[in-house]
């Protein structure tokens, strides 16, 4: 065990910058690209979708269901993975192979994003401070915009409206966090995670604005369909036809683009 640990530490030392990196996790890859190290990536996971050029890289599968031989087969010399990559046995096999495996902590908050950027920078042996301070300045701008809000709007994030059942984002979700960063109030509270919400609770929540992911067509139900439901039709959002649609990864990714997402959402809620 100690020997394995020592070996791991030795190989993890940045004696030579690795240039065959497998990046597992959408926001981790986004940070690598934002740090200008896109050309050092050789593989990605199925949640890495931005920047789009990265989708050309070989896909080693979903980050929680990795195949050790699949990851080894692309020949990485460094694996960057978001927190919770697995299964544990696969991660153990990869560590046995002597490939440095760096786990990047995950937390949907401005501090969490900065910590992620610094962790990725450290793993890549790149000075992450310029990007971190740039992102931090973005968060400050979002905070300034937020401070001007006098009459905060209640925003309901609808993940899906399949068959008239509304799946909404409650507490402890990236959706709730970004709504607050944009100066809104999450209309769905009292439960954690993304859950179906009953019609009456939605009626009581009385959202001013509906927030949805822009999935190009079918899934993003049209406004008329949405407001045809009794619970939503009576909401203030229906009266002003206020539906905001944003790219899902930008909105919920909690990466370097999150300040932009917060400001974009703020502008959509309160007008630029």
């Amino acid at each position: 065990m100690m020997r394995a640990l020592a070996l791991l530490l030795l190989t993890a030392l940045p004696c030579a910058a690795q240039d065959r990196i497998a990046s597992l996790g959408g926001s981790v890859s986004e940070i690598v690209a934002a740090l200008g190290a896109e050309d050092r990536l050789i593989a990605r996971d199925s949640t890495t979708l931005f920047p789009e050029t990265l989708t050309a890289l070989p896909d080693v599968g979903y980050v929680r269901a990795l195949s050790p031989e699949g990851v080894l087969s692309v020949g990485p010399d460094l694996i960057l993975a978001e927190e919770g990559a697995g299964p544990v046995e696969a991660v153990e096999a990869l560590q046995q192979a002597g490939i440095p495996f760096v786990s990047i902590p995950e937390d949907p908050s401005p501090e969490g994003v900065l910590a992620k950027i610094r962790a990725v920078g450290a793993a890549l042996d790149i000075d992450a401070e310029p990007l971190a301070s740039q992102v931090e300045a973005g968060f400050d701008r979002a905070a300034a915009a937020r401070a001007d809000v006098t009459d905060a709007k209640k925003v309901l994030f609808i993940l899906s409206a399949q068959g008239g059942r509304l799946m909404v984002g409650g507490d402890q979700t990236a959706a709730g966090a970004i709504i607050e960063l944009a100066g809104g109030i999450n209309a769905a509270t009292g439960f954690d995670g993304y859950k179906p919400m009953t019609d009456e609770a939605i009626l009581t929540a009385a959202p001013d604005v509906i927030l949805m992911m822009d999935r190009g067509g079918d899934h993003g139900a049209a406004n008329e369909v949405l407001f045809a439901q009794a619970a939503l039709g009576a909401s203030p959002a229906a009266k002003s036809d206020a539906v905001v649609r944003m790219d899902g990864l930008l909105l919920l990714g909690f990466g370097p683009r999150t300040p932009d997402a917060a400001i974009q959402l703020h502008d959509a809620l309160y007008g630029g």
Partner: protein
Amino acid sequence: MVAIAGSVPGDRSDRAKRLFFWLLAGLAAVAVLSIGTGASGVSVLDAAQGWMAGNLDPRDALVLKSIRLPRLALGMLIGAALAVSGAVMQGLFRNPLADPGVVGVGAGASLGAVFAIVLGGMLPVWMGQHAVSLMAFAGAGYSTLLLYRVATRSGRTSVATMLLAGIALGALAAAMVGVMTYMADDRQLRDLTFWGMGSLAGASWTKVGAALPLILPAILLSPLLARGLNGLALGEAAAGHMGLPVQRIKLLAILTVAAATGASVAVSGGIGFIGIVVPHLLRIGSGPDHRWLLPNAAVLGAILLCLADIVARMIVAPAELPIGIVTAILGAPVFLWILLSRKGVGAL
């Protein structure tokens, strides 16, 4: 019971015996194929050469020793366990649709696994990374025990009661899984989904070591059940008149299935279809005599699961498809085709 080999019309035991050795040869071939196939491109030839010359690349050695070999071992064990369990269940229930799910193994195991995934924080720390496997096994064992107790009155187990109680218990377990699915966050939801589709991707010697002491005895002891299951095919009363210890046979069969399937499900998640299709193929090909059906099922199950695993890890490499999808996508149409091409033959 006195049969002179080859003299009774319709006796296919010679054929079944020969088939066993053919299947063993097939398994050896599949094993070589499995060791030589993988995303990293290390072939058997490379490995053999490197090993002979003593200069096998450390990474290739790792791929072979810590990834492909345990995976092959686990695949063979689980394939054999599922197929034998299926054959035993179908014999015990005298029902071609019976599978280990009938004794509550699947429902109990998935409830245990889902509990560990969603409420893992409530479990004792020593379970650690093995919490899902341990809970799945505990769930499988407990639900089987429960069903057995429900169906046993004054020392006699009613298989009909067991079948019905199994349906009720399955519904209850499904409802509880539903409650926990509702409580799960999105990451846990994806974990749940992947668990249900089964995978050998997490194969390690630890898992082989954990599954082996349960699965191997079950497979090796299963031929002891053969005479009893053959007798039960005539009906329980007839089997009793033949002097077979019916109750002991039932208990041993249920224990065998619980151990083998419980261990399989615990280490690899839900892998369907092998338990239904393998015994049927063998009955069509070489007759329903359990003395040969059980060993043949073990070997054919191992072959099919290892083949499915090769497909699972190669088809979308470097990613990997859950193996339960492969067994169903490849297995179901073949099975249907076999059933359809047997026109005019009624019962299975």
